[in-house]
C-alpha cells in the first residue's frame, strides 16, 4: 500500500568499461614472448619440412644443441680470451682517449691542429689495418688488443672534445667568480658537464670494440669467440656457428644494459626522456 513508486535498481556497470584486465595491462610483457615463440615454432617447422639445405641454415633445436656443444667444449676459454682482449683494448682506448680528448677540447691550438686528422681517422674503416696489426703484434691477443684500442679510441676522443667544448661557459664563469681554482673548475664543472658525453663515448666504444675483437679473431687467430664462429662456419657446423652468433648478441645486450644502468646513476640530475 505505497503511494510512491519504487524505481528499478540501477544496472551494474558494464565490465568492458571498467579497468583493463591483466592481459591488457601486461601486454608489453607477454607480447614479445609470444612473438618470439611463434617465430621459433614456424622456423623449426619450416626447417623440418626441408625448406632449406641444412648446410646453409639451422633450425632452433640445432642451434640449441650447438650451444650445448659449445658450453661443453671451448666456449669458456674462448670467451675468456675475447673478454681479455676486449677489456684491455677498452682500457687503453679510455685511458688514452679521455685525457687526449679533454686536452684537445680545452686547448684551442691543439684542437685546430688535430681535429681534421681525428675526424678523418674516425670516418676511415680502420679495420683494414687488422692485417698490419697482426704483422706488428702477432697472432695472439696483442693484435686484437691493438685492434680494439684503435677502433674504440676515436669515438672516445671525439665525444670528449665535444663535451669539453660545449661546457656552458656561464657555469665556468660562475665557478671562477665564486673562487674555484683550476682544479676545482675541472672537478666541479668540466667533469660533471662531460659525463653524459663520456657515457655516449663508452657506448660507442663498446660497439666498435666488440666488432674489433670479433673481426680481429676472424681474420687471424687461434682462439676466441670470433675465431670459433669462423671455424664452425667453415666446417659447415651451422648449428654451432649460429649459436656462437646468438651468444654474441646476448653479450652485447647484457653489456649495453649495464651501461644504461651506470648512465642512470651517473647522470641522475639530467631530465630523463620520459619527463
Amino acid at each position, binding site marked *: 500500500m505505497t503511494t510512491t513508486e519504487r524505481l528499478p535498481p540501477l544496472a551494474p556497470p558494464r565490465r568492458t568499461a571498467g579497468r583493463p584486465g591483466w592481459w591488457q595491462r601486461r601486454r608489453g610483457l607477454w607480447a614479445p614472448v609470444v612473438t618470439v615463440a611463434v617465430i621459433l615454432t614456424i622456423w623449426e617447422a619450416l626447417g623440418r619440412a626441408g625448406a632449406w639445405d641444412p648446410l646453409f641454415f639451422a633450425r632452433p633445436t640445432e642451434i640449441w644443441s650447438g650451444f650445448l656443444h659449445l658450453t661443453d667444449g671451448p666456449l669458456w676459454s674462448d670467451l675468456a680470451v675475447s673478454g681479455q682482449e676486449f677489456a684491455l683494448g677498452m682500457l687503453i682506448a679510455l685511458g688514452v682517449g679521455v685525457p687526449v680528448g679533454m686536452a684537445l677540447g680545452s686547448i684551442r691550438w691543439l684542437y685546430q691542429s688535430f681535429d681534421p686528422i681525428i675526424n678523418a681517422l674516425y670516418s676511415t674503416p680502420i679495420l683494414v689495418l687488422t692485417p698490419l696489426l697482426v704483422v706488428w703484434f702477432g697472432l695472439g691477443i696483442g693484435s686484437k688488443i691493438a685492434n680494439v684500442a684503435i677502433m674504440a679510441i676515436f669515438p672516445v676522443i671525439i665525444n670528449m672534445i665535444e663535451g669539453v667544448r660545449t661546457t656552458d661557459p656561464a657555469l665556468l664563469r660562475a*665557478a671562477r*667568480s*665564486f673562487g*674555484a681554482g683550476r682544479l676545482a673548475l675541472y672537478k*666541479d664543472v668540466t667533469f660533471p*658537464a662531460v659525463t653524459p658525453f663520456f657515457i655516449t663515448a663508452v657506448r660507442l666504444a663498446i660497439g666498435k670494440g666488440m666488432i674489433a675483437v670479433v673481426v680481429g679473431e676472424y681474420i687471424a687467430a687461434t682462439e676466441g669467440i670470433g675465431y670459433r664462429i669462423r671455424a664452425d662456419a667453415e666446417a659447415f657446423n651451422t648449428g654451432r656457428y649460429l649459436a656462437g652468433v646468438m651468444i654474441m648478441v646476448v653479450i652485447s645486450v647484457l653489456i649495453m644494459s649495464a651501461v644504461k644502468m651506470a648512465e642512470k646513476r651517473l647522470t641522475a*640530475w639530467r631530465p630523463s626522456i620520459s619527463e
Partner: protein
Amino acid sequence: MGRATTPPAIEVSDVTFSYGETTIIDRVSFQVEEGEFLSLIGPSGCGKSTLLAMMDGVLEPDSGTVLVEGRTPNTGEGSRATVFQGFALMPWKTVLDNVALGLRYKRPDLSRTERADIAMEYLEKVGLASSARRYPRHLSGGMQQRVGLARAFAVQPRLLLMDEPFGALDAQNAEVLRDEVQALVEQEGRSVILVTHNLDEALQLSSRVLLMSAGPSTIRDDVSVELPSRDSPHYAARYDEYRTRLWSHLRDEVETTRARERNAV
C-alpha cells in the same frame, strides 16, 4: 690631517678594454663608496657585463686600473659575489649544494656540515628551504634566481655584483624578487653594483645611477638618487624628474646603437 681613510669600495681609473680591434670601454673612471647601491645602465652591448667582470677579477683592463677595496681584484680572493642573469646554477648539484658552492671555495676552513648549515640558513631567507634537495631544473625561473641570490648572499660578500638579475624573469616575478633583493641588501648592508637596462629598476633600488654611452663606452651621466619616502606627496614629481633626465640620455644612446646596427647589416 693624516687620518687613514678606508679606500672606496671600487675605484675605476681610466679603464680601457677591447675585444680584438673593437674598443668596448674607453677611458672610464668612477668611484663607488662603501655601502653605496650603484646601478649601471646603458644600451645593450655597451660593455656593462665586461666592466662587472673586471670588478670581479675575471677580466683585466687593457689599460687603467680597477681596484676593489684598494686592491686589484683576483678571482678566489676578496669578499665579492655575483648574481647572473642566466642564474648559472650547476644542473648536477642540488639546490643546497649550489648555494654552498661559494662557501666551498671561500670558506675551506668550514666543515661540510657547517657550510650546509649556512647554505640552509640563506635558503630559508629566500623561502626555498623545502626545495633544498631538488635539482635546479625542477624550479621555476624565479625560484632559480632565488637560489642564485642565496648563493651570493651566503658568502656574506662586502661587495655584491648583479648582472641583470631580473632580466630572464617575467614582470611579476621580477617585481617580487626586486623587493626581496632590497630587503636582503638592507638587512645585510653591502655595497652593490646592479647592471640593468631597466630605468625604473635602477631608480627603485639604487642610491646612484651611472649611465653608460653606446660603445666605445664612456660615462654619460652620474646621478645620485635621493627620493623622499614613497608616501610623500613629492615622490612622484621627483621620480619623474630623475626618470626624464636619465631617459633623455639613455634614448640617445639606444638610438646610436640601433643606427649602428642598421648600418652594420
